[in-house]
């Protein structure tokens, strides 16, 4: 038993942190936030590919570094901390994981090397409207290899080359890979709460769709992809939440009110202690999820749900109370508190809202309890 990253993994993490401090300061995030026409930081994306991050968990035979998911988790934490405005989650946690999970040998050989090289941006297109997609609500359909329907919101939908799309074929839900630059695809940017990330509506009118995984397996595969992504996003969330705590602490030590640092008032101290508590609980749950993901353990569904629930809770608390700790300045456009608050909302929804994950968690426990 061993409940920590290895020294090598820690080193990778430290290097990533230093790199991102240099290459992805808040001004880089704001460059995307303040310019709606810019969907992501291209330079940073190229740099991430050059660092080998995109291919970290992709097998060597497919052009990756062949490291484990633990390394990916370590990187995710740093990307989350830096609010990296790049389609890392969409491409790696969604697309690459989907292909690794369900792709044929041909699909793996065709797409994974391009992902590792930074030549292919991915997206997951499952949602069609308010609420969780269900078998009953699913409208998008594939007939004769052609996809029709609309998906929204699709994170990184404007910039993705290849999307994993949930659609029905012969009445059965399945997953499909769709090239977004091909004919029959139109995209429209959507306005969201976190403009530092790109989100679009995709409309398909007879776009070519190749099946990913078996017919009828759409929702099971989607859930498995989300389980994997939930763990990886949890690390991004923990990274962001920890940064919020640091910002709060630094501010609480330097800001004076009534002749004392605000950090000497218990109302502030206890708030920050609560942030710490939530962040540690989230981190520990994320570690367990990371182990389950990396080991391919049967505990993954439970571990992923717990990691996601804890991470969503911690990030929400840390990002909102970070603003509160800063007072008026925290509510301005200029101060970075808002960046985390916005990203917190994006991450809490991009892989399904926590409420659904809580339900899933309890279902898993019931299954285990009965067993």
């Amino acid at each position: 038993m061993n409940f920590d990253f290895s020294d090598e993994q820690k080193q990778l993490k430290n290097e990533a942190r230093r790199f991102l401090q240099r290459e992805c300061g808040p001004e880089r995030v704001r460059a995307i936030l303040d310019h709606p026409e810019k969907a992501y930081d291209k330079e940073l994306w190229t740099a991430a590919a050059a660092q080998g991050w995109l291919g970290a968990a992709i097998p060597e035979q497919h052009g990756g570094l062949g490291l484990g998911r633990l390394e990916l988790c370590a990187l995710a934490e740093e990307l989350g901390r830096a609010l990296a405005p790049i389609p890392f989650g969409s491409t790696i946690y969604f697309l690459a994981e989907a292909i690794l999970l369900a792709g044929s040998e041909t699909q793996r050989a065709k797409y994974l090397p391009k992902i590792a090289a930074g030549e292919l941006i991915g997206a997951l297109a499952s949602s069609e409207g308010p609420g969780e997609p269900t078998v009953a609500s699913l409208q998008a359909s594939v007939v004769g290899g052609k996809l029709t329907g609309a998906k929204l919101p699709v994170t990184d939908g404007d910039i993705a080359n290849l999307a994993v799309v949930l659609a029905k074929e012969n009445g059965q839900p399945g997953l499909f890979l769709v090239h977004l630059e091909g004919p029959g695809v139109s995209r429209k940017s959507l306005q969201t709460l976190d403009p530092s990330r790109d989100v679009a509506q995709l409309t398909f009118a007879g776009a070519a769709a190749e099946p990913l995984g078996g017919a009828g397996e759409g929702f099971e595969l989607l859930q498995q992809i989300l389980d994997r992504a939930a763990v990886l996003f949890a690390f991004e969330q923990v990274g962001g939440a920890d940064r919020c705590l640091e910002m709060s602490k630094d501010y609480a030590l330097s800001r004076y009110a009534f002749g004392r640092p605000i950090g000497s008032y218990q109302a502030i101290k206890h708030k920050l202690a609560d942030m710490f508590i939530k962040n540690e609980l989230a981190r520990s749950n994320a570690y367990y999820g990371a182990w389950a993901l990396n080991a391919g353990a049967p505990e993954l569904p439970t571990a992923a749900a717990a990691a996601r629930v804890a991470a969503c809770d911690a990030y929400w608390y840390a990002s909102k109370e970070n603003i509160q700790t800063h007072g008026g300045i925290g509510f301005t456009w200029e101060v970075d508190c808002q960046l985390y608050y916005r990203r917190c909302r994006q991450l809490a929804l991009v892989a399904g809202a926590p409420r659904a994950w809580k339900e899933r968690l309890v279902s898993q426990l019931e299954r285990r309890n009965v067993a």
Partner: protein
Amino acid sequence: MDFTDTPEEAAYREKARAWLIANAPKQGLKPGRDHDGSDLAEARAWQTKKAAAGYAQITWPKEWGGPGGTPIQSVIYAQEEAKFAVNSGYFLIGLGMCIPTVMAFADEETKKRFVGPALRGEEIWCQLFSEPSGGSDAAAARTRAVRDGDEWVINGQKIWTSGAHLSDYGILLARTDIDVPKHKGMTMFWIDMRSPGVEIRPIHQMSGASGFNEVFFTDMRIKDSQRLGPVGDGWKVAIVTLMNERLSVGDIRGLDPAQFLRLAREVTIGGESAARNHAFREKIADWYVQFEGLKHTRMRTITSLSRGQTPGPENSIGKVVAANVAQEMAREAMEMLDQFGIINDPSLAPLAAGFQNQVLATPGNRIAGGTDEIMRNIIAERVLGLPGDVRLDKDVAFKDIPSWR
């Protein structure tokens, strides 16, 4: 990161499990915080057996009667022991706090005298720190120790002393100088709880049990050789005791979210199983995530210990989270039963009134061993480095500090 046993760990677990199956009673003793003494004889017998087999204080070195095991082994053993109805609660304060303090500050002869019997459950210890004048502010202790030749004369009162009524010995934090600031005027001693001049009065707790006590000292005489650490250094010694308290990796006692879920399955609300009720389901998920988070957090601490590192601050969150989740979960369980929830007759209430009893016990968990507020202060100050509170008592002679008003 690996949450599975290595082959050596698996072998250790197997050995421990086999030993437990062969030796532990499966029914009878129930772990609990209320030391009512009713199961003391069995608990002692169990502790003796454990010590002989090398399963008591697993990380203690051989010279002190431990097997010299690793922190991971002690976790593995605890996980396995938790599946059996045995009670080691009477010995926790002694082995987790008092004896480590004795080991750190007493002379060889004293150590030799006390370590073995405590390990084997033959002698029970208590911690005499809190007083009516202060528990959070334990450095406000007023119990006086006045030197008389080779002896000290003790007068005063301790309170909330868990297990004092069952204890053979205790460690006592006493005021030896009232003319210096409070942290500088204290000294630590070990005492025999049966000495003349000691009077122990059990306190009736709100939970109904009497696990803690008032302890009065009237001209109790003790030898200077019973002093632990230098005169005036009592606070430093107390810090060592309290550090050991925080390091001792205790289990979360009481019922867990899985038991709540099991109960929910048997209860019907509005024509459907309470286990289908979304309000409860969401809460179960929240509690589960916190329990799991604590469990893994504790394992992170063990990992740093076994790598020879000083554990990080993670472990300081344990008590606050565990006590509050336990309290809320118990309340919800009562409410799930609707009117019936108020019944705590164990023959009628589900789980032998486990949740009802937990409602009554958890307020104590939020206070004992550092209140929620003190734990948050500790996290804020020691972990996050925020400033300490403004102190009005710091550079003032103890005798001039204001107390009750």
